[in-house]
């Protein structure tokens, strides 16, 4: 092994394909986005270099702040819902007491493999103000909370975020379940012998030992929330008005509807920075040291 790691040529040869792919597919487009964000550009002509004017305009644009706020709300909702519910389900399934575990495991994962368009159409019907299941449910329960879920500027983003939370909860469930199974049994056994309850053992032993799994889930949910697009594109078209815009949607509108690719690139650049920051913070706060069992 030592001999192999000493061979710099071998290292270069083996890492080069991945490095090249990464550079071409990820690094170069990101750099292009930053570069183009300094231009007034319609996507076809050469464009005019305008320094940081796009950023200045972006910071003066109220839609930018709406998008930023919506991204954060979306990320918060899906992070809490997905990781929270997925954890509860994973711990219950892993416990071994519940019957029909296999069926439940598959059921939780089904929404993940469904097309996002199908899921959105399904929830559009559920949310429908006139004949939707959601309002009917409230009616049956005798609760006067019937809403026009997607047409209200305030509730629309929450309603849309919940659809994403529901669909991808199964993905986090699978990750967390795998994490639970990888924690050696003897730790839990030792806790039980010491008199810890199931809840205490999960809280004090299981969750801290799964910090790396949770770190991955957090990064995935937070960045996924910040750059959400498909749900609002299909369900609300960013509306009503701009009330379900995220930075990705703002980028789409600027570049493809308004034809301001430079401005759209500035929004995209802000999104990249936002996601990088979120990832850095999560890495700083969660599982700073590698956990070995």
């Amino acid at each position, binding site marked *: 092994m030592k001999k192999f790691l000493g061979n710099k040529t071998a290292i270069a040869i083996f890492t080069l394909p991945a490095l090249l792919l990464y550079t071409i597919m990820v690094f170069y487009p990101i750099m292009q986005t930053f570069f183009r964000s300094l231009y007034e550009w*319609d*996507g*076809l*002509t050469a464009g005019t270099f305008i320094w940081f004017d796009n950023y200045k305009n972006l910071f003066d644009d*109220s*839609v930018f702040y709406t998008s930023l706020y919506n991204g954060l709300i979306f990320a918060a909702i899906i992070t809490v819902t997905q990781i929270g519910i997925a954890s509860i389900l994973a711990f219950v399934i892993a416990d071994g007491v519940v019957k029909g575990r296999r069926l439940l495991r598959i059921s939780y994962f089904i929404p993940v493999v469904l097309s996002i368009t199908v899921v959105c159409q399904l929830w*559009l019907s559920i*949310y*429908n*103000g*006139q004949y939707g299941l959601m309002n009917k449910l409230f009616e049956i329960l005798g609760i006067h909370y019937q809403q*026009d879920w*997607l*047409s*209200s*500027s*305030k509730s629309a983003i929450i309603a849309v975020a919940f659809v994403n939370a529901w669909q991808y909860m199964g993905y986090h469930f699978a990750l967390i379940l795998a994490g639970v199974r990888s924690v050696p049994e003897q730790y839990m056994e030792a806790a039980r012998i010491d008199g810890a309850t199931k809840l205490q053992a999960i809280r004090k032993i299981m969750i801290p030992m799964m910090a790396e799994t949770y770190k991955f889930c957090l990064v995935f949910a937070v960045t996924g929330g910040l750059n959400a697009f498909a749900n609002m594109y299909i369900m*609300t*078209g*960013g*509306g*009503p*008005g*701009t*009330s379900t815009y995220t930075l990705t949607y703002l980028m789409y*509108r600027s570049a*493809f*509807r*308004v*034809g*301001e690719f430079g401005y759209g690139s500035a929004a995209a650049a802000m999104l990249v920075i936002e996601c990088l920051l979120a990832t850095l913070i999560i890495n700083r706060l969660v599982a700073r040291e590698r956990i070995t069992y």
Partner: protein
Amino acid sequence: MKKVATALAGLSLVFVSACGSAGNNTDTAAKETNAGSPAATEAAAATTAAPEKAVKLRIYAQYSDDDTKLPYDYAVAELKKEMPNVELELEVQAQDDGQKLKTYAATGNLPDIYQAGTDIINTFKKSGNILELDKFADLYDFKSKMYPSTMNTLISEDGHIYAYPYAGNEFMLLYYNKELFEKNNVKVPTTYDELMTAVQTFNKAGITPLSLFAKEKWPTVALYDVFATRTEPQGILKLQSGGASPSDPAYKQATEELYKLIQAGLLPKGATNLNFDQAASLFYEGKAAMFLNGQWEIATSTEKLGDKVGWMYFPAADAASYEKNKYAFVGGGNPGGYAVNPDTKDPELAAKVAAFISLKYAEFKYTERGNPMVATKVDKPIVKEYPPMMKQLSEDISKVTSTTAFDWGLSDAKFKAAIEDATQVLMTGGYSVDEFIKDVTKAIPNGK
């Protein structure tokens, strides 16, 4: 092996010489004939004239429903008779805000002929991806076949021609179900007060007053324009040009009236989430009393509701403004139609095909689709009789005092996006008049 090679070489030589001799023979024959009388020369020229070279042109056009498929198929069939050597390779236009076409332009893969609207014309003009057709304006007498009133669909803002239009000026109409109005003893409104009474009565009867597919943003802009044009006939066009501000009394009053009516339940629950099919079915099934859509809706509405359906002039603040602006129509036309790629091999031929297709497209719409709203004059008799609503509209066309523009005809993309967003939120009722005015004012170029 050597033998096989020799045999092949021999065969190929025979083939080449055969071809050569065939050509030579023709030449010789021609030369011999040339030596004869002039009449003989002409006859020979006629007999020996080679058929025109087959040309294949890529065309990017709408082809999604009967209203786009049938006229296109007719135009192509007519083209086959006119230019048998030209074959069109159709690529169906995507409903994607012109993204596919812009990507083609960016990658140098633009089709020879494509359908272009205002946005594409304005963008491609700057990037040099659209052929200026001024010198080809009279192919097939195109320019002279235009109606004076539809010249705005041919000539762009800069005075040049970039596309051959087929659609004329189109209008927004407020359709209504006569039976529902009669059954509920509601007068067809001419003023906002009467409209308010209608809204209240229909709501009490469990009928949606006005069905609007507000998930798409353009109908929301059109509804705002309906109210704005009752006092300022130039409506959203004047806002776009910076000639007026949404806070001007005319526009402010329009916003306030619309806001009041929405609060009173003018639109169905969740209107901003209703797509065309959902909104239209409310009207067709007699669950909505009114429906706002373009005049192209006439055919389907007549088919679904028969003589129960009609269209009304837009109500205004009072009887005087109703009469004054009765013929101030909402909608209009904008430059657009079949355009030509400047890099096409034979620009004149492509322009010829584009002009021909546009003429025939309009011809079919006029004669077979019951649609007189075309850009060019048609000298063929109408095959399909116009429905009564279209007859009424045709009679009114000469009385039209002003038009505005459809949302997609707005040339300032930034203003267009902003007014689309603002009017859509206005439809929810959860957006104050002042917020609306503030947001639209910000997007107005050189806004006051």
